[in-house]
């Protein structure tokens, strides 16, 4: 059934591209309803304050203002607080301290941007002008923005039920064993490592259009979501907006997500509720300034780590203490990011028997922090890979050699932090990357750069991550409030064309192409005969959406399961009509044939037969449409080796990434073109985090990187062409053997960049982002210490 041109492994051009390149994509802000009004939020300019009063009179008096609504009305109507859906308990067994989060604050605001009221008006401009006329009286309170400061005695308390701003104090691994391992070590590497706070910044700002049908008591929400079904579930079950059968959520074309569009934010809740209150369709579209103070931020860890090695460079013990900043409120998956998505990956690619991590999550007066591309895994990878490279330098070993001495080589491998790695060949990725990067030729390139007055450095990162986040029973045991399976439906129409309904959501990943490829291959049909339907809760039965690189390993597996059922039925129909044994039926070239004969039915004839039902096997139901739920048996473990080469200008600290090489193990690859694109994008975000991106608050909690003038993201001229390669092992855990590729680039690249720069400048003490100023300062420290010697 090989389908070379369009099947698995083919570089098929994307089916979805035509509408995007011709300007015909349909994003949420492109939706316009009849009788549409616009929402503008009144937001706190203070990081921490009591709300004394809200005077709406001036705004309400303006012509064209439909209503001004506040949090007392919202909670009065029974709209529930926003919740975190993953319960993480402290090590003493106490539950996490989740503070109340109302979509519109009533008593207290806890970060700059916290909404206190919403204006609904006939035009967007008018709504914004009227929002300015709403007078809110605040009583300012002291604010705290840094995670470590939030834990000090003098810090203001942000939520009454979180004494000392502590959300949880959690641990994993065996502290006594880790201590013993460190005590036995010949060499110990100790580092303080911060993972900088970043803003995801999908190019399409968030948007919502809510409509209430009074006669049906039914709501429709168009929104920029990575997971419309999860949005519907949460909006119904927790926020009491409407029961699920009275709420349709549509996520049309979505312009990037990177995690920021997983969560259900105050604005969507408010728009839905306001559409009922005003009996108008209500639209809200964020502008970029608003996105910086409302979209969940990512990362923001402060860690100290100790790693011990024996005389052969084998790791004897590893101990990590991390403080994670979760911002002012607990966003939907926030609790899981610095725990089950971070500390469980701290074993890296290495056989570490004695490992312990302690994580304290804290509140601060900042935007809530949640999953951003990689979510916890980049923080783990950055920590381990900075440690390994630094340890190698301290011990005078080659960084690649130290890593190789500690690689896991037997699978399955159980780590002390509850992961069971199922497959991988870390040596193969390392070797492939070293060859592609021409590591052997590096000294010559370094010498040549020195002649030009440049410092050239090379850095490694050997990452492993966990994708798929499953099985449901396991994650449920760890506190997840949802199951993490995926569902699919395969509909063969009477004319033989196929529609695939999937709970995965594509917002740039190219599902309309890759999902169609696995169907075209399976049934040996033209790609154009297959359509993918997603993003609408009225069309697709259920779904968990797209995040955590799960659409391939989980979403596609559900399609495979449904296709298994369709194929079984097709065989039965064909065997019956062609008077053959089911075992002799082959599906090939658009036909269903009896092997070794000229007896065949066209695929369309099978479709028609199933629906006319004139001649089906006895007892068979008419129709050819099957659905399936797929719940994986384990996480998947993409891994790889990245090598970065940089040149630093010692006079200015300006750093250029001159070469970036990736060797990834993603398991089976459906469409290499799309997979490479995913890696490119991930690398750009990782390099961005490493070199330029940082959300900065001043000490009073004012966000001072609130626009593209101040928050630096990579432009085309900041990045190189990437050298992307694959050395794959098949994942044993799912039918296609896939591991996931969406986040690897962002996970693996930051330590490679920083390792390369620290190699160039001869100072291991450098924090992200490696701006020219930070690099220059680190260089001056080297000069100063040399002068002192």
């Amino acid at each position, binding site marked *: 059934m090989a389908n070379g041109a369009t099947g698995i492994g083919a570089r098929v051009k994307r089916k979805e591209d035509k509408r995007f390149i011709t300007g015909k994509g349909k994003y949420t802000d492109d939706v316009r309803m009849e009788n549409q009004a616009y929402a503008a939020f009144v937001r706190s300019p203070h990081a921490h304050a009591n709300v004394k009063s809200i005077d709406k009179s001036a705004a309400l008096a303006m012509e064209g203002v439909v209503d001004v609504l506040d949090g007392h009305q919202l909670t009065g109507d029974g709209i529930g607080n926003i919740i975190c859906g993953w319960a993480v308990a402290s090590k003493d067994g106490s539950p996490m301290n989740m503070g109340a989060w109302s979509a519109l604050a009533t008593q207290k605001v806890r970060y700059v941007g916290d909404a206190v009221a919403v204006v609904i008006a006939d035009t967007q401009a008018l709504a914004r002008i009227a929002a300015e006329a709403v007078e809110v009286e605040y009583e300012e309170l002291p604010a705290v923005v840094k995670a470590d400061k939030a834990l000090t005695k003098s810090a203001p308390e942000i939520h009454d039920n979180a004494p000392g701003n502590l959300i949880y104090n959690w641990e994993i691994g065996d502290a006594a064993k880790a201590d013993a391992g460190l005590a036995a070590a010949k060499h110990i590497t100790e580092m303080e490592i911060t993972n900088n706070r970043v803003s995801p910044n999908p190019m399409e700002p968030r948007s919502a259009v809510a409509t209430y049908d009074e006669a049906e008591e039914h709501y429709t929400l168009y929104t920029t979501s990575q997971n419309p079904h999860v949005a519907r579930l949460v909006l119904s079950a927790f926020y009491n907006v409407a029961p699920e059968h009275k709420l349709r959520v549509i996520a049309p074309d979505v312009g990037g997500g990177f995690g920021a569009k997983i969560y259900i934010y105050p604005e969507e809740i408010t728009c839905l509720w306001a559409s009922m209150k005003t009996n108008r369709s209500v639209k809200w579209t964020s502008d970029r300034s608003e996105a910086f103070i409302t979209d969940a931020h990512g990362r923001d860890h402060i860690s100290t780590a100790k790693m011990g090695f024996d005389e052969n460079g084998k790791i004897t013990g590893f101990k990590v203490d991390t403080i994670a900043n979760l911002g002012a409120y607990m966003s939907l998956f926030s609790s899981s990011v610095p725990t089950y998505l971070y500390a469980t990956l701290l074993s890296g690619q290495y056989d570490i028997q004695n490992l312990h991590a302690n994580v304290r999550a804290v509140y601060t007066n900042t935007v809530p922090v949640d999953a951003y591309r990689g979510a916890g895994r980049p923080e783990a990878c950055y920590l381990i890979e900075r440690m390994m490279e630094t340890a190698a330098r301290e011990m005078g070993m080659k960084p690649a050699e130290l890593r190789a001495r500690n690689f896991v080589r037997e699978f399955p491998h159980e780590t002390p932090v509850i992961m069971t790695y199922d497959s991988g060949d870390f040596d193969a990725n390392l070797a492939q990357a070293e060859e592609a990067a021409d590591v052997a030729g590096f000294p010559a390139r370094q010498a040549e750069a020195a002649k030009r007055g440049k410092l050239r450095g090379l850095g490694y990162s050997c990452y492993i991550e966990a994708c798929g986040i499953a099985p449901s029973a396991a994650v449920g045991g760890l506190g997840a409030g949802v199951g993490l399976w995926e569902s699919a439906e395969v509909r063969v129409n009477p004319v033989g064309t196929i529609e695939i309904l999937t709970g995965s959501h594509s917002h*740039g*990943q190219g599902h309309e192409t890759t999902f169609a490829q696995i169907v075209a291959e399976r049934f040996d049909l033209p790609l154009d005969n297959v359509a993918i339907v997603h993003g609408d809760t009225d069309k697709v039965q259920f779904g968990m959406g797209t995040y955590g690189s799960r659409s391939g390993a989980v979403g596609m597996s559900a399609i495979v399961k449904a296709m298994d059922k369709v194929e079984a039925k097709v065989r039965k129909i064909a065997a019956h009509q062609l008077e053959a044994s089911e075992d002799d039926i082959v599906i090939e070239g658009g036909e269903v044939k009896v092997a070794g004969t000229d007896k065949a039915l066209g695929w369309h004839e099978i479709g028609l037969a199933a629906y006319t039902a004139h001649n089906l096997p006895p007892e068979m139901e008419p129709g050819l449409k099957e659905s399936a739920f797929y719940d994986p048996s384990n996480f998947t473990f993409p891994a790889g080796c990245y090598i970065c080469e940089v040149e630093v200008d010692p006079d200015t600290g300006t750093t250029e990434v001159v070469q970036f090489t990736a060797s990834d193990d993603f398991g089976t690859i459906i469409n290499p073109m*799309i997979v490479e694109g995913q890696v490119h994008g991930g690398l750009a975000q990782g390099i961005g985090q490493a070199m330029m991106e940082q959300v900065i608050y001043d000490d009073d909690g004012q966000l001072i990187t609130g626009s593209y003038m101040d928050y630096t993201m990579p432009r085309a001229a900041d990045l190189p*062409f990437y050298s992307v390669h694959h050395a794959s092992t098949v994942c044993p855990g799912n039918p296609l053997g896939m591991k996931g590729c969406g986040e690897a*680039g962002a996970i693996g690249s930051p330590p490679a960049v920083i390792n390369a720069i620290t190699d160039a400048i001869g100072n291991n003490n450098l924090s992200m982002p490696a701006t020219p100023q930070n690099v220059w300062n680190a260089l001056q420290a080297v000069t100063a210490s040399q002068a002192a010697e």
Partner: protein
Amino acid sequence: MTKVKMTVNGKAVTREVSGETLLSEFLREDLRLTGTHIGCDTSQCGACVVHIDGKAVKSCTTLAAATDGAEVTTIEGLANGDLHPMQAAFKEHHGLQCGFCTPGMIMSGVDMVNRYKAEGREVTAEAVRHELEGNICRCTGYHNIVKAVQDAATKM
């Protein structure tokens, strides 16, 4: 309100607009040409780039009233029927993922190649990266965008 007359994608358009209406708003809301996107509020991201009298302009920093008498081309009007070579190259080289920055990238790319051709300059990768300074993409890491623009340059 001011009366503006312009040609948009080859069609004559006359509308009453208020003085503060931005061209991006005018195109999206009045003409419903929603291929022109708005990705920021400080004129940095370039998702809103259109051509005014053949030159790439950020429509989020242009007043509709100021384009009176101009010839405006948006992503919807770039090609007649078939794809423009730049559009085709973006598809061929996987130069887009979520598609949000794509209209602006394509319009900037076309303008750049036109200028370079007129001046007889080579469309190098370095030149493309430099010229796309005002267009931000968060998905592709720019690798395939640069390749697409260079390839389109050979076909325009």
